[in-house]
């Protein structure tokens, strides 16, 4: 019951959300839009990993989610800092 619900309702909904954000990631008129889109894509990936760890009953996948959250923060801060310093004189 729970597995089927997660597998056939929650995971497809998260995938639809990821596709919508990916459209913005491809379209985004500025680089900063792409940075925000990438950050949000990684966040959705963390959610998908958490749901997947429930479905397969392996709690070890949550380590991957933790590292992914770290890397998303680092990437966002590095990109935005670079873009800010580039416009500085």
């Amino acid at each position, binding site marked *: 019951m729970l597995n089927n619900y997660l597998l056939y309702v929650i995971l497809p909904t998260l995938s639809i959300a990821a596709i919508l954000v990916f459209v913005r990631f491809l379209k985004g008129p500025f680089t*900063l839009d792409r940075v*925000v889109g990438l950050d949000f894509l990684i966040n*959705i990936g963390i*959610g998908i990993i958490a749901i997947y760890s429930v479905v397969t009953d392996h709690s070890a996948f949550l380590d991957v989610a933790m590292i992914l959250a770290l890397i998303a923060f680092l990437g966002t801060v590095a990109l935005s800092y670079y873009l800010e310093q580039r416009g500085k004189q």
Partner: protein
Amino acid sequence: MTDVIIMILTSIGTLFILIAAIGVLRMPDFFLRLSVTIKAATLGLGFIMGGTALFFLEFSVTAKVTAIIFFLLITAPVSGHMIGRTAYFTGMKLWKGTVLDELKGKYDRKTHELTSDGDHAQEGNDPVDEL
């Protein structure tokens, strides 16, 4: 019983993330997109992580989930603020329906410093370079 609670928690979280994704796609302005993303994604992920912790009910998993939620709560405002600051400095256009820009003229565009008076007021919101 636990299954029902997990289903409710993950459903709420997924709904928040889906609404945030629609907002990212449909909002007319960069700043509106940013404000939609950060808050809703953090809340939705918190709900999903709560459901995961409730499913396993082990100390190690709960500690991991708490660490992830804590980390998200710390880092999301920081990264959101940094992106918004960068966007304001590089002259990102505001939406035409924007009513109030409280930072207008308060920032020195060259040195990126905040001033309380309007000495460094710069008219025009032209981008520094093509982003």
